[in-house]
C-alpha cells in the first residue's frame, strides 16, 4: 500500500471491496484464462451474494471479464455490452462459512466437455487475489507479474523451469510449488519483477510434461 492507495484508486462506485475488488477478480480471471470465451458461470459467496446486487458486484465482475478495469464508466452497462459481444453468463449464490466473505468462482465453458475454473477473493481497498486455478491452489494479486505452471510430477522439472528462466534472464521474486498427489500433477507459481518473455513461455510450453503455462503481467501501476 502507498499514497495512491490512499488518494485513489480511481474507480466506479459504490464499494472498494464489492465493486472495484470484484471487477478486478473478473479482470484477472480473464487474463488467466487467456483465450476468447463466450460462456461463463459465476458463483457469488456470502457477502457478495447478499449485498452484491446493491453494489453492482455482478456487473463489475462481468465488466472485468470483458476487459474493463475498475475505473471504466462502462461497468454499469456491462450486462448490455456482454449481450452485444455474445458473452452469456449466469449467476448463482452460495452461503458457506468455510468460504471467504467476498468470494467468486468463475467457470469458463466451451462446448460441453471443456470448462476452466478460477476462484478469487476481494480483500478490500479495491484489491483482489486469485486463489484457485483449476485444481491448483494459488495466491496472487497484481503486485507482480505471474507465471503459473502445471506439469507432470516428475523429477527435474523445477530445474528445467529454472534453466529456461535463467536463459532469458527472468528474475524470480518468489516461488511456490506443490503437488496434487491424486492426479500426479504439480504446479509452480512464480512471482516475477517483469512479465515473462514470450520466447521463454513458448520454450516452456514445448516441454511435453508441462500441461499448462499461464503468464500475467503486473497490474499494480495500471490502476
Amino acid at each position, binding site marked *: *500500500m*502507498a*499514497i*495512491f*492507495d*490512499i*488518494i*485513489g*484508486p*480511481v*474507480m*466506479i*462506485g*459504490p*464499494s*472498494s*471491496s464489492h*465493486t*472495484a475488488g470484484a471487477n478486478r477478480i473478473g479482470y484477472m480471471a480473464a487474463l488467466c484464462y487467456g483465450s476468447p470465451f463466450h460462456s461463463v458461470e459465476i458463483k457469488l459467496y456470502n*457477502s457478495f451474494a*447478499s*449485498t452484491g*446486487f*446493491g*453494489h*453492482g458486484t*455482478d*456487473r463489475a465482475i462481468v465488466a472485468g471479464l470483458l476487459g474493463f478495469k475498475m*475505473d471504466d*464508466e462502462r*461497468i*454499469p452497462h456491462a450486462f448490455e455490452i456482454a449481450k452485444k459481444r455474445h458473452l452469456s453468463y*449466469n*449467476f*448463482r*449464490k452460495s452461503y458457506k462459512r468455510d468460504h471467504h466473505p467476498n468470494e467468486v468462482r468463475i467457470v469458463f465453458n466451451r462446448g460441453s466437455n471443456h470448462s476452466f475454473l478460477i476462484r478469487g477473493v476481494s480483500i*478490500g*481497498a*479495491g484489491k483482489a487475489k486469485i486463489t484457485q486455478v483449476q485444481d491448483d491452489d494459488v495466491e496472487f494479486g497484481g503486485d507482480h507479474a505471474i507465471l503459473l505452471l502445471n506439469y507432470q510430477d516428475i523429477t527435474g522439472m523445477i530445474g528445467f523451469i529454472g534453466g529456461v528462466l535463467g536463459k532469458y534472464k527472468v528474475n524470480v521474486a518468489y516461488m511456490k510449488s506443490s503437488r496434487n498427489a491424486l492426479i500426479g500433477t504439480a504446479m509452480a507459481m512464480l512471482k516475477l519483477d517483469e512479465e515473462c518473455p514470450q520466447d521463454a513461455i513458448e520454450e516452456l510450453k514445448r516441454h511435453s510434461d508441462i500441461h499448462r503455462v499461464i503468464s500475467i503481467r503486473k497490474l*499494480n*501501476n495500471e490502476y
Partner: protein
Amino acid sequence: MSIKEIPNRIRIRSTQDIRHYLKSYPFKGLTDFFMEYESRNRLLPKTEVYKRMQSTLIVMKESIAKGKAKVNRTPSGLINGGCHTFLNNMPNTIHLMGEWFNTVIANTLAVSELNACMGRIVATPTAGACGVMPGAFLTICDKFSIPEDKQIQSLFIAGGMGELIQINASLSGSQHGCQAEVGSASAITASAIVALFEVSLDKIENAAALAMSNLLGLVCDPVAGLVEFPCVHRNIVGSVNAIACAQMALAGLTSPIPFDEVVSAMKQIGDDLPASLKETSRGGLAITPTGLRIQRKVRDEDPEKAY
C-alpha cells in the same frame, strides 16, 4: 551533520520517522518527501508520480460536477436526489452559515451520491468516504483560487498521513468501523487543507489528530449493507469536521494527544468494536425496524435472488 543520499526504500511508521528523514536526508520539504516515498516504493519516476496525482485530481473535480449534474437515485430508494433537492431548495431556505458552508455540503453530497450510483470517483481513502476530500478540500481550493500545483502538493501530504493510518491501523469499515473510513478521510482532508496555507508538519499533524479524535468510535452500520445510508450523510460530518479542525490548527490550537497515538487509539477501539458494528449490517441503524424493512425490500427486488 553530513547529509546522506536518499535511500532506495523509504519506510515510515510514525510522524517521528518523517521528521527523522527530513532532518537526515536532502528532501526538499514534506511534499518532496512523500513524492520520493511514492516514487521509490513504486519504482516509478517522480515525474510520473506527479502526473498521476494530477490526473487523480482531475477525476476528483469531475466527480463534483457529475454528481451535481443529475438526480442521483438508487434502487433501494435510500439515495433519492438529495443533492439535487438541497440545491433546488437553497434559494428559499435560510442559510445558517454562509454560502460556502452550503457549497461544502452540496459538493460532499454530490460525490457521495455519485459513488452510490456507480459513478466514477476517487476512493479517498475508500469509496464509502470519497465525498470528504472533494467536498471540503476542493471547495476551499475553489474559494481561495489555489493554483493546481499547490493542490497536488497538498494531496501528497494527505496521502502520506493516510499511509500512516493504513500502516498502523486500517482504512476499512469492516476492520475498524466507520472511524477508519470517514474518520480517516476527515483526518487526511484536514491535513490537506492546512497544507494549502502552511506546510508545517506540526500544524498538519495537529489538524489530523483533532479530526480523527472527534470521530473515534464511529461505527459502521450501513442499512441493507449498502454504501448509501448513513454513509452519504456521514461524509458531511467528515467534511465539516475537517474544515473546523484545519481552522483550529491554523489558529495555533494543538491536540493534547499526538497524531500517532490517536491512530493507535483508533485501532484499539476498532478492534474492540463488536463485529455487528463493522460493516456486517447486524447492528446500529441497519437493524432498526425501518432499516430492516428497507433491507427486505432491497433483497426482494434483487432480480437474481431466485438462484
